[in-house]
């Protein structure tokens, strides 16, 4: 397995967020992590790129435990494992092309001219070339998300983490983002880990799904397996019912 979380534990003060989470992600798959808000989905994937450190447990990326790496050594991990944040998190003071240029200049040390040319090519891939010199504040959520995806893909990562990529998007933009993620897995061979509770996304593009509940993995399976399960908690979540065994 290229990515393995083994017995990950994480607390914030007295609150236990992850309590022994173990998951394996296969090469080239589109793996969804689902669960209620605040259950620790985003916290889990942030451990993989060193934005958070686990209290206990191992995180194996290509066979190497990255849980204890220092910030400098994580730079190499972040080159092959990119992340698209929930709110796009483009830098407000930079234009779209400058946002995409930044990882090229920092990670690859490209010259400003070369970095800009590469960034424009990346923006072209997500159909954002015409907005290259616009500032993020001038764009809608869907367009900003595309720029964020271009920025994440600019280093040709093998793994891409998506933190609620369709949240706050209109249905059409959300499906376009889904399509983009699926294409990445099918055509480029990227392994995608998607944190989401967008049921349409989950059942249209996921290869496998892991559901977190109360700090632990409740179930891992394909969309068909999730639909067929007798687990009341999983059924309540995927059916979006207010009443059921799931505790708030």
């Amino acid at each position, binding site marked *: 397995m290229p990515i393995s979380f083994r017995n990950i534990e994480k*607390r*914030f*003060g*007295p609150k236990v967020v992850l309590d022994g989470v173990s998951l394996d992600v296969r090469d080239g798959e589109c793996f969804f992590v689902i669960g209620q808000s605040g259950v620790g989905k985003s916290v889990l994937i*942030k451990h993989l*790129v*060193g*934005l*958070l*450190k686990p*209290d206990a447990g191992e995180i194996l990326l290509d066979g190497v435990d990255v849980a204890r790496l220092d*910030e400098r050594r*994580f*730079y190499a991990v*972040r*080159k092959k494992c*990119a*992340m698209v*944040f*929930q*709110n796009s*998190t*483009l*830098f*407000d003071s930079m234009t779209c092309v400058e946002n995409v240029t*930044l*990882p090229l200049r*920092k*990670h690859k040390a490209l010259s400003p001219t070369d970095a800009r040319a590469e960034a424009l090519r990346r923006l072209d891939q997500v159909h954002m070339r015409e907005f290259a010199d616009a500032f993020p504040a001038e764009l809608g959520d869907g367009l900003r998300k595309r720029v964020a995806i271009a*920025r*994440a893909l600019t280093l040709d990562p093998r793994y891409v983490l998506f933190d609620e990529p369709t949240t706050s998007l209109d249905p059409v933009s959300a499906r376009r983002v889904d399509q983009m993620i699926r294409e990445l897995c099918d055509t480029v061979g990227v392994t995608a880990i998607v944190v989401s509770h967008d049921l349409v996304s989950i059942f249209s593009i996921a290869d496998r799904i892991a559901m977190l509940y109360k700090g632990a993995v409740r179930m891992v399976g394909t969309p068909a397996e999730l639909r067929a399960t007798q687990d009341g908690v999983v059924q309540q979540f995927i059916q979006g019912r207010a009443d059921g065994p799931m505790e708030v």
Partner: protein
Amino acid sequence: MSATGERTAPLEADVDGSREPTGLLETVGAAPLELVRDLRGLRRTLVTTLRYTFRGRRDWRAIAEQMYAIGNRSVFFLSVTMGFIGMIMIFQSGVQTKKIVPDLTLLGANYIELLVRDFAASIGAMMLATRVGAGIAAEIGSMVVTEQTDALRMCAADPIEYLVVPRFVASVLMTTVLVIWACFIAMMAGMLTANTIFDVNYWTFLNFSLVDTGDVVVCFAKCLAYGAAIPIVSAHRGLHTFGGSEGVGWATTNAVVHSSLAVIVLNFFISSAGWLIFGS
């Protein structure tokens, strides 16, 4: 709660494994421990900033933008404040002096010495701590809660190198410039007040005979120290923001309080050192 009674943002390392104090001893001991932990974090921010300032890349465009934000945009605020403070100080000094001696010929000389040695830098820096410190903490704090600093880290850009260093360099340079300007404004305001209220001649007032090398050295030492302390303290607060917009509010408040405290504490140490080295 911090040792100064304010809510502080917990570092990830700080909150891990922590719990609410239960006993009396724990409650009493929590505040100093929090202060020590906070000072350690502050030292880390300072050391990393200095390392990047002297060894890292220098983004001159970002530095110029920050110089404009910190310097040019503070000129009006600082001029008005220092002008009024200059007038108040001369008025009160003149009134008090006249109760003892009728001669005000040395009013300007004493005022200018105090201004150069202490007041221009210290009061000017306190004013900057409110405007510049709040701005830095709010800006960086907002970036933290919207995950922009995490996005920077994903791009292999250290938030301290990218966000703090330009503000640090700009603040050190512009605080020095602004203090010189503040000194000039306070001097002019004092001179006009002395002439209008106490009929002190302009040239009698502008008496620099009491200002010596020690005063000027101490003044510049204060400019550099305050110019460095304000962005470091404020950026540290901003970088440790948590809890959304409420957290940004707390970070901003703490930045102003702690920057002002830093100015006062540094003033004591630099003034003492100046007195030991140069005498009175």
